[in-house]
């Protein structure tokens, strides 16, 4: 990234959208309950991988344009505060957790409504960056929907931010059949592809600074070791926002704000085919190859 002329240096206010997701890539045999529902407790919760790619892009902008600030925004249950802490460990400057029972059961539309209301509450920003999609749904919808709700432009599938100059951002997009370079005036929203560089490791200084950062709910659940810290160091106090805090209409949140309904969920049962089981012995492999050749499947 080419930093712009130092005389004309410009800092950015960036919001990074991040989601805590069950690690669906490492689903064990106990991931599904007997009744066919998902056993969330058996799945580790992780920082959505492409949101980490997004955070890295924000951190690179912060390196290039001193004075840039990064604010994380996430929505989820109380334990999603882990996402904010993780972001702080990597170099973000602050964050907000949207958490409220009324947000539960949201589809992408209700989720993007809630997030857009929180962004309106944050108010002052130049750029919103999120991952292209989350691994638990793979829909890639929340980014564009947030942009639409905020009536601002979107650029999806971004692989690299080439630079920001005089309020215009230039990026490289990775599409099915090639690469596109596009530019647009800030403020706007971009989503980052998994092909973008991985996130840098946690920063030891940031871990030291933020290791006691917690939300009020977390401090109610587990008595903090140093309660006085939170008065002296306000940055350790992570903010939780409810539906009311972001002036959202409860009817548009969660299940009631979701036009899509899940009619049925099946855990997957395969129709067993008639199947021949072979060993890896030379004679078994050769007989299979001969059979395929004989039936003109291969050759």
């Amino acid at each position: 990234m080419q930093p712009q002329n130092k005389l004309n240096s410009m800092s950015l206010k960036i919001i990074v959208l991040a989601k805590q997701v069950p690690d669906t890539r490492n689903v064990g045999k106990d991931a599904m309950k007997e009744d066919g529902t998902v056993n969330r407790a058996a799945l580790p919760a992780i920082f959505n991988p492409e949101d980490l790619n997004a955070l890295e892009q924000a951190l690179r902008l912060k390196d290039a344009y001193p004075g840039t600030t990064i604010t994380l925004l996430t929505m989820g249950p109380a334990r999603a505060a882990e996402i904010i802490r993780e972001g702080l460990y990597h170099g973000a400057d602050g964050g907000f957790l949207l958490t409220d029972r009324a947000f539960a059961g949201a589809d992408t539309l209700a989720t993007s409504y809630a997030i857009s209301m929180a962004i309106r509450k944050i108010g002052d920003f130049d750029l919103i960056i999120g991952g292209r999609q989350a691994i638990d749904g793979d829909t890639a919808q929340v980014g564009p929907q947030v942009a639409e709700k905020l009536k601002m432009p979107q650029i999806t599938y971004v692989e690299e931010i080439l630079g920001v100059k005089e309020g215009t951002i230039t990026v490289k997009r990775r599409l099915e059949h090639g690469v596109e370079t596009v530019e647009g005036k800030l403020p706007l929203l971009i989503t980052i592809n998994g092909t973008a560089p991985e996130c840098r490791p946690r920063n030891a200084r940031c871990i030291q600074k933020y290791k006691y950062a917690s939300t009020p709910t977390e401090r109610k659940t587990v008595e903090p070791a140093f309660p006085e810290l939170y008065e002296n160091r306000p940055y350790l106090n992570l903010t939780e926002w409810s539906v009311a805090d972001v002036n959202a209409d409860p009817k548009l949140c969660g299940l009631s704000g979701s036009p899509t309904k899940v009619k049925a969920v099946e855990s997957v049962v395969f129709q067993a085919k008639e199947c021949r089981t072979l060993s890896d012995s030379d004679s078994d492999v050769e007989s299979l190859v001969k059979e395929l050749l004989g039936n003109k499947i291969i050759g």
Partner: protein
Amino acid sequence: MNNLIVYCEIDDGTVVDVSLELLTKGRTLANTLGCKLEAVAIGSKLDKIGGQVFPYGVDVLHLFDDKRLYPYTSQPHAAILVKLFKEEKPQVALMGASCIGRDLGPRVSSAAGSGLTADCTQLEIGDHTEAKEGKTYHNLLYQIRPAFGGNIIATIVNPVCRPQMATVREGVMKKAIYDENYKGEVVKHDVSKYVSDTDFAITVIDRQMTKSKINIKSAPIIVSGGYGVGTKENFKLLFDLANLLGAQVGASRAAVDAGLCEHERQVGQTGVTVHPKLYIACGISGQIQHIAGMQDSSIIISINSDPNAPINSIADYVITGKVEDVIPKMIKYYKKNTK
């Protein structure tokens, strides 16, 4: 009114395959619903689009022709669809789950306040009863897709909001001419009534498009590797076998995520759907999202060290063993028996 609408993606004056596949599916669904099939084409120099889409059974083609509308950018295309949907009130809107469809669909659904289901693997028409209200909705679009990393299959419906929107990946539906001589109506719209100058906020300054050299979609034989292949070196064995058989190499998502293989080769719900005559699955456990993309293969061979791998239950032949032992033997005996 209340018809079924398909957004046609255009590449260099040609309607892309995924849109033709959706027109084919759309025609079937429209027949079930007893409604018309409409197509929307947005771009520049669209004179030849009618000839391309009418054989698929399109009753009405909406054209929005303006040189600023190609190449695609999000807001102008979204603005057109949002206003067109308000006017035409389609009951169903379908688009490809391509980079364009996945950029455009959510933006339109948000503005229309309507539900959108991404990456459907099946679309059907059926009824739905909301237990809470005791109300039955007739002829809804069942949007069926694997969810949760492919561990479950969900049927999604949009009881109230319209249009019911869904995206489908290329290759999932099959394209087929409905009637060579089918004739529909062309409606040319005045673009300036749909798009304002502020919608052109993003400028495309450079495009480097290449026809992908990798094309596994129509390969007759696919040798596909999963996480169980283990290493890039072992993956090379798959390429050796594929070269010998005149096959393409595919991969599971886990293998792509682990960096064993490039994304263009990914088979499954979030990759390519394939229908080869022979599919050799090497070290692939068989998550639904993978199986969704290859279950229509004529013959499936599974090579896996785990005799209980889920994919074995849909395989015709199961070889229990290590990929790095079995593939070299297949190569050896293929060579020996084809001399």
